[in-house]
């Protein structure tokens, strides 16, 4: 059982080559954790593994997986679980940010975006749930998004997938509460990463993945259940959620 301030020893990261995930992995590496990195590109995973070992990770296991292949997710989770016979922390960090204009005109692209951002992580969490429940401890940390807090015209396909994931995580938290398993819903705001590199990524609303990762690891250690990162997004999203329709609909958000 991990205490509130003690770092976890075994950590699995699904979507390990995302910029936020790398920064989380580096923090755990520094405390000597054992890491399972699950991602699509084996070369990048290997390069990160070498880096994480030099940064202090006790062991790093890489596992190639395509999160869009829904039928394979169950085997993927079981295989990851075997690497170190379980883990105290699982971080679900993958996703894709499609361009709204391109998804809203294509049924195929809408299905793909909903599948990767909602169906796939829901399946992964569903597979992890009984394993964590049997273990009677641990933290399931899921990166959703502030975009899931209210549907808006500029990104509602992505936003609805993340919003659905928020509800799924909420229910899962309820289910696993009795087993002593914490389920953390991480809602980052704008983060300057590969996923957002096509946008203008400077200004007061933009955060670095290092900052966001620091917040996430702290929230995991403190067994928090919902994290807005950086913190000011909680206030912004409260306003966005509460804005009356007639006003909200005239905005260009």
């Amino acid at each position, binding site marked *: 059982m991990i205490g509130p301030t003690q770092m976890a020893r075994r950590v699995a990261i699904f979507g390990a080559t995302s*910029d936020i995930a790398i920064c989380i992995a580096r923090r755990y590496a520094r405390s000597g954790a054992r890491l399972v990195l699950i991602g699509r590109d084996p070369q990048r995973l290997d*390069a*990160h593994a*070498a*880096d994480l070992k*030099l*940064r*202090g990770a006790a062991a790093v296991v890489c596992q190639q997986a395509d999160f869009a292949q829904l039928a394979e997710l169950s085997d993927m989770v079981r295989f990851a679980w075997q690497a170190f016979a379980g883990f105290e922390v699982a971080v679900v960090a993958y996703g894709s940010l499609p361009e709204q204009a391109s998804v809203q005109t294509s049924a195929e692209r809408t299905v793909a975006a909903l599948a990767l951002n909602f169906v796939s992580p829901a399946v992964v969490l569903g597979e992890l749930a009984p394993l964590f429940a049997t273990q009677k401890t641990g933290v399931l940390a899921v990166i959703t998004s502030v975009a899931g807090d209210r549907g808006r015209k500029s990104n509602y396909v992505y936003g609805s997938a993340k919003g659905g994931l928020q509800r799924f995580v909420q229910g899962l938290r309820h289910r696993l509460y009795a087993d002593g398993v914490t389920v953390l819903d991480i809602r980052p705001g704008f983060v300057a990463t590969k996923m957002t590199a096509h946008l203008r990524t400077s200004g007061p609303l933009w955060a670095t993945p290092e900052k966001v990762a620091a917040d996430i690891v702290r929230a995991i250690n403190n067994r928090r259940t919902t994290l807005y990162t950086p913190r000011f997004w909680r206030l912004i999203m409260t306003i966005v959620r509460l804005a009356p329709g007639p006003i909200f609909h005239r905005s260009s958000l």
Partner: protein
Amino acid sequence: MLGAIEDEAVLAFGCGRSYGDVALNPGGALIDCSRLDRFIDFDPATGILECEAGVRLADILEIICKPEAHGSSWLLPVTPGTRFISVAGAIANDVHGKNHHGFGTFGRYLLAFDLLRGDGSYLTCSPTENQALFAATIGGLGLTGLILRARLQLRRVPGLAVESEQIRFDTLDDFFDLAAESDRDWEYTAAWIDSLATGKRIGRGIYARARHRAGASSALPASTPSFGMPVKSPFSLATPMTVRAFNALYWRKLGLKRRVSKVCGYASALYPLDAVDHWNRAYGPAGFFQFQSVVPSAAARSATAEMLRLTAASSEGSMISVLKVFGDLDSPGMLSFPMPGITLALDFPNRGAATCAHLAKLENIAIEAGGRIYPAKDSLMTATSFRRGFPRYETFLRHIDPRFSSGFARRVGLLEAAQTRPGT
């Protein structure tokens, strides 16, 4: 990789710690290399480190250079006055530090690097492979291609802590005596100079020397500064009055003592300015100019005295004024800055044309004395001064990658010269 940016000339951007325009590319594009920051391999038996080129020296110090049994450790053989720079930046400026007299420049410890050229070719360069491009890229200001990863030889130190001494001296001659006496037994040496002292007192200051202490370990320096200037000051805090007060106070910082000794971590001896993040913001929106020259030994005393005399007589005051003797170890790069002689670094709050005119005079003295100006710190050097200071630039032109450019290269005429070079 480079194909994504069509037509635009590019330049690698690391930590943005160069003072002038060597890492700026107005009219072109910058490639953000901050995510090129993975360690690849480290062999604790040999001290050979392989890493991606955007790894910062601070990361190497924090993650690799940890004290072992009996306090000994691997350490960067050469490091400049800040550890918040990238490995590629250290190569591209062939940086030096307070131990130049014993260790030379950063490039001397470079075993190899991989370079991506604008035509898509990918070259490993080392002292035995693509030697010319190796020498051109060390100190090559990023103009020869994109450095992707590097292999470095770290050095062994008997302890991470250093014993350091600060000694007050009254004249420029005293500085040269102290330097001659110290450079054999002390690996880190440099002197702060009171830039406002006049007459017989010209060149007075505080000589700082340090050496590793066997068996004495020290806490690792933080990977980020613990406190900083949160915002840019709306006006410069470096006014003629505060500069004068700073110099007067710093000169008296040893109190009544002539010499102060202590044992401390290497960070406080090597990186005093790294303690404050964004210290440059204190200079306000107009900023400041850095100036660093080196003058060969023969003319060093008279040229240094003249530069200090001019500075004290002008209304331009410098706060962090540093004097150091460079050793005679060869610099491996075609455009490496250090040469045997005396280097002087000054900083001036930007007060417009008057400051620029003063810097032009200093530049002229250094060049006339057979010296050169440090591109990493320069914003004003003329094309003529560059060519006179760096006579190997003609050989260097051959290795400039036509897809690369920088503000500095444009300013000193390097790009123009590369395009009109016969045979291309």
